[in-house]
């Protein structure tokens, strides 16, 4: 087994330099926006994510070591397996990310990344602290290990995937050449993903290759006709990192406590964000439907309908 480096550790100095460069560029051109308390919150969330990775990462490693004994094949370390693992990991990332928006239990963790009303390179570093506790790695992270890809190879390509996603969190780059925009996730596609405009809700889940969204019907192109609003549907009134980290978990707890049946418990816990027994709250689906009605647009036909979608 080759001794693989941790690409994220190597990338951190680059992240810092690029955040500073974008800040200066934004100041000179007005094309990007930074606000000190928002920047501080994003960076502290990023640091906390690294620390929690050290503290809680052992749970994930232990699971993968356990699952590895049931692997179907013994895939080696040839270079092309790295390429295949990278593409497959991105496919798994797409679904993992999609469910992070459509299942409240996982959204409670992922909402941290969307909680900034800014969209700049520091937003890329705004990451949750409790990710391993969601157990998402069991349901979505095990597949490649079960096929037979070595866990260290998966960790390596997953890190490359995350590094790729860093640079697309910017307003400084408008559009890339058409073939790149067709194949790859780009700043333009990912701005759509971070938008709370109803037309953009729950779109563009891709990590590296945007083709997954094109294939599974969740792609939306950025339009110049509408200014993008970033953040979440109910933006946070605070920059406190603990509140940023815990607010949706707290919401789930409160709702589950008020539930009057098992159905309600499951709905509040595993339903789409915004689900409520009487439908009095808004999910992405209801927001989008209302917006389409206001615009006089035709709602999607039933056979084209997406699975329940979540409020960003």
């Amino acid at each position: 087994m080759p001794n693989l480096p941790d690409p994220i550790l190597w990338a951190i100095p680059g992240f810092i330099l690029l955040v500073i460069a974008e800040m200066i560029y934004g100041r000179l051109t007005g094309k990007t926006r930074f606000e000190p308390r928002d920047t501080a919150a994003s960076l502290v969330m990023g640091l906390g994510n690294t620390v929690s990775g050290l503290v809680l990462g052992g749970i994930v490693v232990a699971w993968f070591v356990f699952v590895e004994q049931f692997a179907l094949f013994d895939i080696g370390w040839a270079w092309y397996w790295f390429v295949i693992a990278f593409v497959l990991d991105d496919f798994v990332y797409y679904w993992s990310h999609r469910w992070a928006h459509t299942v409240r239990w996982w959204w409670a963790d992922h909402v941290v990344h969307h909680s900034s009303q800014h969209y700049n390179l520091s937003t890329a570093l705004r990451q949750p602290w409790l990710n391993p506790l969601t157990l998402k790695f069991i349901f979505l992270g095990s597949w490649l290990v079960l096929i037979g890809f070595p866990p260290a190879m998966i960790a390596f390509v997953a890190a490359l995937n995350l590094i790729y996603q860093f640079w697309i969190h910017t307003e400084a780059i408008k559009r890339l050449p058409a073939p790149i925009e067709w194949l790859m996730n780009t700043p333009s596609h990912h701005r759509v993903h971070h938008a709370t405009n109803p037309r953009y809700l729950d779109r563009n889940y891709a990590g590296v290759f945007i083709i997954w969204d094109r294939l599974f019907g969740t792609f939306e192109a950025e339009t110049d006709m509408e200014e993008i609003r970033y953040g979440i549907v109910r933006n946070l009134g605070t920059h406190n990192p603990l509140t940023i980290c815990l607010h949706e978990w707290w919401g789930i707890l409160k709702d589950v406590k008020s539930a009057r049946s098992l159905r309600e418990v499951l709905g509040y816990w595993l339903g789409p964000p915004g689900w409520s027994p009487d439908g009095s709250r808004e999910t992405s689906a209801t927001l989008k439907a209302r917006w389409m009605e206001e615009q006089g647009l035709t709602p999607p036909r039933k056979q084209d309908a997406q699975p329940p979608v979540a409020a960003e």
Partner: protein
Amino acid sequence: MNDGMTYALALMGAGFGIGLIVLLNIAMGWTRLRLDTEDKARRFLKRDVMGFEAGDEQALTTDRCGFICLEAGGERLGLVLARGDNAVVRALRAGDVRRVDRQGATLTIALYDYTFPRVVLELGRDGQSQAWAERVETFVRAPKRALKEEARHAESA
């Protein structure tokens, strides 16, 4: 050097780095949002809360960082708070407010909202804050304990 010491140093270094980036952000300047006009504040509400149309009852805070209004029809209470260079809005329904307190021209609204627990509005005139305190009072939900007490009293009566 042991691992614990290495991690502690790395953490301190990262904290120092974050501080430097934030200081750089402050040094380069940024524009704080001010709600100069009622129209501007209403636009935030319309933008962020689909279907919200502010009515005629509305007030800007003296520092131009806050705005309160009743929805046309009075069903919801609209709040806009400048936060940094952007605004956070809420459209509150009856029962969303925990408590409202008034001290002179200052209105303090406590909400059942973990991410937005307290709003302080400096409204300029005592009369204005008094009127708004009364309006906001209609959105207050009594704590569960008080409701239980009330139910017990009703039963015993």
